[in-house]
């Protein structure tokens, strides 16, 4: 009997704690006019995506510091509230819910992986709060969600950039597409096929492979047989790129190669070395692309002692663009901020120039870069159709 009593007491205590706890977070704190404005940030602090998570965190921190140093938003300072997304779909949804409990949070910066954003979409719809993402899957902003804002060009644009560069600049008409068989790779393949078709080119080969492939002999044989002179790749993991590049060189295949960002990622370059020299890739961020990008790179290097990448650049831009919208908005109600975001025109960020459309896509251009003896050089910026 005593045991039951103890259990009951414990249950009541937990309940009270829960209720008072909730009460506390839902109560708005401080004076409206001078209180800091909170930006929620879902950051991967644990799990396999901590590396990218760290970059995203740095980018956001840098932007917040710069904005606060310049006087904040109409006199109010910005602060970041970070939650661990645990590198998983479940983790990001949990983190999102936690951030929503804090009613002072005006906007939220989400994670990059498209699958994680897809997992969050229903909650975002219900929560009705502006959420920024770096996920590039085309469908994310075309699902009817009015609250998702994308700070990187989507995969349809990268496909257009790759196809256009392959056909118009490299003048290759026998093009093969090699892609991972996941959502990213398959989606990219479809977009690339469509983009090539617009340019009057039908791919001579369309080849999927499974992520984590260790031997690309079969892929290379198929490429050789197809007679392709150009190759567009959507490969999810950069180590796979490294192995493919090495084996292409070893097995004596000569081909013009432009691929998604994994082609220039550090692991790929480390593994492949000179086997990747001369290859092209699309990149949403490049320090030479514009003045803001250059300024960002310098500030980032000064603060964190390393070069930024696209993970840090898009969160950096997200904070700036959110701040701009909040300055312009009549109040900080979510709907007002949303409208202000949609009204943003020609805002120069590190990634490019932001003009949000009704879908929430901010950018419409892609950089083409080349691996020149392990230095990633900007070749050109290609404007894409949305």
């Amino acid at each position: 009997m005593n045991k039951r009593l103890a259990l009951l007491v414990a249950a009541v205590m937990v309940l009270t704690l829960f209720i008072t706890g909730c009460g506390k977070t839902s109560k708005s704190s401080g004076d409206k006019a001078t209180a800091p404005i909170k930006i929620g940030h879902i950051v991967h602090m644990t799990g396999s995506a901590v590396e990218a998570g760290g970059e995203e965190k740095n980018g956001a921190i840098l932007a917040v510091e710069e904005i606060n140093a310049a006087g904040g938003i109409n006199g109010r300072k910005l602060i970041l509230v970070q939650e661990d997304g645990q590198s998983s779909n479940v983790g990001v949804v949990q983190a999102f819910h936690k951030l929503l409990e804090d009613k002072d949070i005006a906007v939220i910066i989400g994670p990059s992986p498209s699958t994680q954003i897809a997992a969050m979409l229903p909650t975002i719809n219900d929560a009705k709060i502006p959420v920024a993402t770096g996920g590039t899957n085309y469908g994310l902003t075309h699902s009817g969600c009015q609250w998702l804002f994308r700070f990187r060009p989507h995969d349809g644009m990268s496909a257009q950039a790759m196809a256009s560069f392959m056909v118009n600049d490299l003048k290759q008409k026998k093009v093969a597409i090699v892609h991972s068989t996941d959502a990213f790779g398959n989606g990219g393949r479809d977009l690339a096929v469509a983009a090539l078709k617009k340019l009057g080119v039908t791919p001579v080969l369309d080849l999927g492979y499974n992520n984590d492939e260790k031997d690309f002999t079969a892929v290379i044989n198929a490429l050789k047989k197809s007679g392709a002179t150009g190759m567009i790749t959507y490969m999810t993991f950069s180590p796979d790129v490294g192995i493919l590049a090495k084996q292409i060189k070893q097995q004596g295949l000569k081909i013009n190669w432009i691929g998604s960002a994994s082609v220039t990622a550090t692991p790929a370059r480390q593994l492949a070395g000179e086997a990747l020299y001369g290859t092209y890739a699309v990149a949403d961020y490049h320090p030479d692309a514009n003045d803001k990008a250059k300024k960002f790179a310098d500030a980032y290097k000064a603060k964190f002692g390393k070069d930024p990448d696209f993970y840090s650049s898009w969160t950096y831009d997200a904070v700036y663009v959110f701040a701009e919208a909040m300055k312009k908005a009549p109040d900080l109600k979510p709907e007002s901020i949303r409208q202000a975001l949609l009204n943003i025109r020609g805002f120069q960020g590190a990634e490019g120039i932001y003009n949000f459309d009704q879908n929430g896509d901010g950018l419409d251009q892609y950089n083409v870069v080349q691996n020149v003896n392990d230095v990633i050089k900007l070749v050109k910026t290609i404007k894409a159709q949305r």
Partner: protein
Amino acid sequence: MSTLSLIGQILFAGLAIGGVYTLVALGIVLIYRATNVVNFAQGDFTMLGAYVLFALSNGEKINFFVAFLLALVVMAVLGLLFELGVYYPLRNRSFLPVVIATIGASIMFQNGALAIFGPMPQKVRPVIYASGNGGITLGGVFFDYQYIVILVVTLALVLLQYLFFEYTVLGKKMQATSQDKDMARMLGIPVSIMIALTYIYSTVIGGLSGMLVAPIFFVTHKMGVMLGLKAFAATICGGFGDVRGAILGGLALGVIESFGAAFISTVYKDAFSLLLLLLFLLIRPQGIFGEKVAEKA
């Protein structure tokens, strides 16, 4: 490119990958035979071996080959610790607790590696350092030196292991231990030492396979997962618990995958091993060599 050299290229790649499956599978089989434990952490030994080699050879403070040998010694120590930490406390329990413990160890190894080395894939240099392609082209077939090293090491190890188990008394004692532990003890065979040796050897060959594939793959905390799965498929096809089965199963799996990818579909490359596994489970569940040692004695 002639069809012949094309087939040669595919065969070579398949055999080399198959050699790696074989090394991992051998570890699984030896531990299973000696202690009736299905070791789900065997794939992770490859990951550990690769990371140990990376840690020792990174920065080239010590000669690579010295680092290589040292890494094998470290793996031996890890093997002993694994035996003492995972198997020994549960040795008198039924099948399941130990197997679950190995799954736990596998998770621990992966997360430990992630905590220590981070998520960034790491690189290890190949055994034969050659400028250019890192290989040689003969008759239209490119032979990657590292692939050659893998094949040679696999064959040499298989041969050495065969000689050891067939022609030494220690080998016989280890076999006796795996066949009937209580009887072995009553004959005065120090069974716990035999078991510890089995774990040490299995960990070392697991680690060795990781050290050999490290330059081809990248070293990541997940690198052992797929290898472990393929090795399991190989052992089941070969006949679970049969050493020859592990060898044949591993090599065959590598070759089938390689040809399947080239002539049927690159997308379903990993599915071939599963398909093969299913076929065996349906048609010949005991595997290729799984009929001998009937429970007669």
